[in-house]
């Protein structure tokens, strides 16, 4: 039997239906915690802060500014705020808390005492984190976009539905999903590796910021390297700002979409190993 045939047989023998039910059970429990926890209020603020600013801008400057300018402003808000800060720190808050929060609240053992493969549990929690972060930041981006063009009335409506607007919105939302998957996997793995993942997270932020000055092969291990290329509106970057916007050696669109997914898959495989070794020792934590 060839290796491929062996793999196919092994895969077909796995209890996929049971795993899906278990992932759904973890997801159901975690979504309630993720959305309704009081400690997550700052993540809501991160996701919707630009909406407030754009709304104020729409009210105060309703008779000034052009659509072209505002499109660039929105691109700046997305690339500089959402991508670099909002989604990054939001995912940090959501994904590091998935296991670390259970450890702090001394409730992780209830998951470990159920007949669930640790890998399945991790995937369930990761899915919960992705749904939460995508919902919050997707809504934030969507509302920011809507508020930005709403003030232009019919022209704005035409731009969105008959011009490039809808394509840009889809791209922003797509990049948001990829960012949540990419950053989420990294922060989930870090939370399993470190008791306090804040310092490693700052290192990740540094890595994501300064990889553009590194060789192109190294840049491919950065999530923003791919996401920058998928942003629909380019921002004219000069000086230090170019660090955040310019891609020196871009890859194709498909590769840019697959890049963060492959990186996330690789990190999740590492996280599988970490979660298998994880012990319940609340006193030590």
């Amino acid at each position, binding site marked *: 039997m060839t290796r491929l045939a062996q793999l196919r047989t092994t895969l077909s023998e796995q209890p996929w239906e049971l795993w899906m039910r278990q992932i759904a*059970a973890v997801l159901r429990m975690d979504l309630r915690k993720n959305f309704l926890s009081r400690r997550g209020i700052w993540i809501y603020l991160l996701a919707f802060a630009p909406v407030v600013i754009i709304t104020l801008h729409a009210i105060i400057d309703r008779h000034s500014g052009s659509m072209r300018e505002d499109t660039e402003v929105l691109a700046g808000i997305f690339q500089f705020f959402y991508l670099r800060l909002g989604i990054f720190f939001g995912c940090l808050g959501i994904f590091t808390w998935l296991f670390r929060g259970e450890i702090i609240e001394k409730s992780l*053992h209830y998951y470990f005492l159920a*007949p669930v493969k640790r890998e399945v549990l991790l995937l369930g929690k990761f899915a919960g984190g992705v749904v939460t972060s995508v919902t919050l930041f997707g809504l934030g981006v969507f509302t920011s976009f809507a508020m930005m063009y709403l003030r232009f009335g019919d022209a704005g409506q035409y731009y969105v539905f008959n011009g490039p607007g809808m394509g840009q919105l889809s791209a922003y939302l797509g990049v948001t999903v990829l960012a949540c998957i990419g950053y989420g996997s990294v922060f989930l793995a870090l939370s399993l590796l470190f008791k306090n993942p804040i310092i490693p997270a700052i290192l990740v932020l540094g890595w994501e910021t300064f990889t553009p000055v590194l060789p192109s092969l190294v840049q491919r291990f950065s999530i923003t390297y791919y996401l920058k290329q998928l942003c629909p509106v380019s921002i004219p970057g000069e000086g230090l700002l170019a660090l955040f916007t310019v891609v020196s050696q871009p890859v194709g669109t498909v590769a840019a979409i697959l890049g963060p997914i492959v990186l996330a898959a690789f990190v999740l495989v590492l996280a599988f190993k970490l979660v298998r070794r994880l*012990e319940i020792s609340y006193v030590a934590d």
Partner: protein
Amino acid sequence: MSDNRIILENVSKFYGEVLGVNRVNLSIPPGVTGLVGPNGSGKTTLMNLMTGLIHPTEGHVSVLGISPTRPEELFRRVGYCAQFDSFPKGVTGFSFIYNTLRLHGLDDRESVRLAHEALERVGMTEPALRKVAGYSKGMRQRIRLAQAIAHHPTVLVLDEPLNGLDPMARAESLELFQALGKEGLHVIISSHILHELDKMSDQVILMSSGYVVAEGQIHAVRTEVKEHPMQILIRCSDPNLLASRVFAQDHVVEAKLNDDGKGVLVRTRDADAFYLLLNQLVVKDKLSLETVAPADDDVNSVYQYLIGSENKTI
């Protein structure tokens, strides 16, 4: 054989440089097994090793032939009521058990049915829809017990399950554990209430400072404790005569008349020889026996002999 036993082979667990348990070898058969030892003796570590919450530094653990590294198989057959008195935020008694059953992969209907069944078994049906945060310690203990038994496990590991229970609930829980043991389940139970463990345990494991000091049926363990002569209380028609006869024997170190004058407490280094002698005396001196009972053939005495002098608190 190993498919019906809990086996620990040369198991050691170190937390950094701190010893949890050291070179533990056990083969636990079905029935109620009492785990006895002072605080910090390694009881909880041993239970956590059996259930895979921690991994051994050395050695192997197998529960009914399943490695604890395979929770997906292990917890179909094992229920663990851990000592951690904490719950996921905002859960009710019912949702706590229901959610665990959903994690097993059961559908809504089956999960509801099993959750209600478990709640009824521990007498928690009435407060089941209230939040766990408002429960008393005893209620929280019972809801954790319900969660451990809800999926009908064949191995039940209970870490201090009687803590915080009122006498009524304690008696009911003991009855439940004994019933489960009689059904052929493995019930591993740690408790510091020795006389209660004594009543329900088929065998005991005595632990001290991370080591297994003794294991087996309590009578067999007691027999092995040679340095403390066995105490046997005999109530008979002529205790004075009996006392004088047995005191002449080498293995008898003490024969003390009871205050009421109707019994003799004998301390002997060889219980078998003493029982043989007693049979002969009954025939020869026409003694009428009322009771013959070991006076220190229980968990408490064995604990005191083996561990008590080193560790006063348990």
